[in-house]
């Protein structure tokens, strides 16, 4: 918060893996960049390097190199197709499964370092509610939970929302639905989650948790086709229904203010 301008940090997270966090983070970044924002996507799914695969990037310098003290942060921030920047985790047999005091410090330092340089930073976190994931989300201004209609995804999304509301004292959590089949299914997911959180989740102030619904991306073959080409959906199939849905979500996200 040192400079006059400081990025709004959004953690894209989910209870379950494989629900499209990385897809959404990368394409939201492209959509936000198209709206004129300076956007950075930070691959916080440490050790898996999903974002690099999704974008077809093979950077020499990664967050792993920065954490190891071998590289400068400046060199690890690279341009991605889609008009935004990425900070890739890099894979390696390095252990990031456990939240050590050192890892805490490093993650915090990186985020504080990039804040003044961008308008928005998207953190593509790992799945689940491990302490590394929770800590990463705690560094963000907004938490965006991605859920699909699949039952385990919905249960895990609820579990994640509950933890974020109770342990991080968040009063508002953003929600986006992915891979829905019927129009309006995302809205039903939101309503179900809101009903259960309304009854079982108590925020610190006692007020009910607000789930701010950003929209849904319905199942669309172009998503898979773009992934196979290792390209952004917004670049490969900008006219697809899914791409337009992402653009709409980006619009609502950029309107979010605490």
């Amino acid at each position, binding site marked *: 918060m040192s400079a006059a301008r400081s990025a709004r940090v959004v953690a894209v997270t989910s209870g*379950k*893996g*494989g629900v499209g966090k990385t897809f959404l983070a990368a394409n939201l970044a492209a959509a936000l960049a198209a709206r004129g924002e300076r956007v950075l996507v930070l691959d916080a799914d*440490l*050790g*898996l390097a999903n974002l690099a695969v999704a974008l077809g990037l093979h950077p020499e310098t990664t967050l792993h190199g920065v954490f190891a003290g071998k590289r400068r942060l400046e060199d690890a921030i690279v341009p991605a197709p889609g008009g935004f920047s990425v900070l890739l985790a890099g*894979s390696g*047999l*390095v*252990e*990031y*499964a*456990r939240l050590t005091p050192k890892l805490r410090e490093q993650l915090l330092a990186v985020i504080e370092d990039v804040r003044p340089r961008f308008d928005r930073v998207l953190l593509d976190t*790992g*799945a*689940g*509610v*491990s302490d*590394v994931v929770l800590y990463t989300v705690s560094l963000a201004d907004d938490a965006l939970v991605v859920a699909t*209609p699949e*039952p*385990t995804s*919905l*249960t895990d999304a*609820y*579990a994640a929302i*509950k*933890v974020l509301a109770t342990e991080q004292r968040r009063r508002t959590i953003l929600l986006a639905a992915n891979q829905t089949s019927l129009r309006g*299914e995302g809205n*039903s*997911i939101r*309503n*179900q*989650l809101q*009903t*259960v959180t309304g*009854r*079982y989740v108590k925020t610190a102030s006692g007020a009910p948790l607000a789930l701010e619904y950003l929209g849904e991306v319905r199942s669309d073959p172009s998503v898979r086709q773009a992934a196979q080409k290792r390209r952004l959906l917004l670049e490969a199939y900008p006219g697809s229904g899914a791409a337009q849905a992402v653009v709409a979500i980006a619009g609502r996200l950029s309107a979010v203010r605490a």
Partner: protein
Amino acid sequence: MPSAVATLRHLATRPERSASIDPAQLRLGEAIQLLLQAGYALPVGADFSARSLQSLIDGLCELSSRDALTGLANRRTFELALEREIDRVARAGEPALMLMIDIDHFKSVNDTHGHAAGDLVLKAVARTLVDCVRPMDTVARFGGEEFAVVLPNCPPAFGAAVAERLREGVHGTPVEVGTQLMLQVTISVGGAFAPQWVRSSAPLWVERADQQLYQAKADGRNRACLEHPLVSNVSAEEKALLFSSSQFEDPE
């Protein structure tokens, strides 16, 4: 290392070359002796066809992947299995369990009844452990009187039951170490799940299972201690409400 692999691949893709090996230039005596000593039936003779060489190599591979005394996977094979499992857990999120097992008071078996008795105990425990797990699980002799098991696709709910089955199996199988002498053997078991969706490392996973093993020892031996996996913070009631709409169906 990669260059050696490349060379082998190169050889493998050129079968016409392998037929032209001059048997007189190969020193196979020691390899054959090792395999015979380990009880392998070999087509030994003057015939050095590609096929007999292949069976010799297969035999050596098998020999170098197993523990000589117990016939279990050895440390090297176990570490390969671990790496494979870590990869799968990171990519697919399947739960996997590792158990570290130590025979209780093994030193006193050796001291009291001799090393031959100790060997019999090691073999018997190895057999019992193999009988208590699925064929897809890897049981290995980790070293000394320590064993390790890696169980792919093992949901947290079943972990404790498996560990307990192993403990009970060994406890209920006295080992005959001499005429009229049956020894009651017990084991301590420590277990840890691989962190799902995250790429872990083999040493850390082993370390976590080891910590549980120390705990089992400290708690008095002949018991199993498992690291608590992250339990869901969602109650049955909450789940029922979450799936109360007919639109979503909870499979459980």
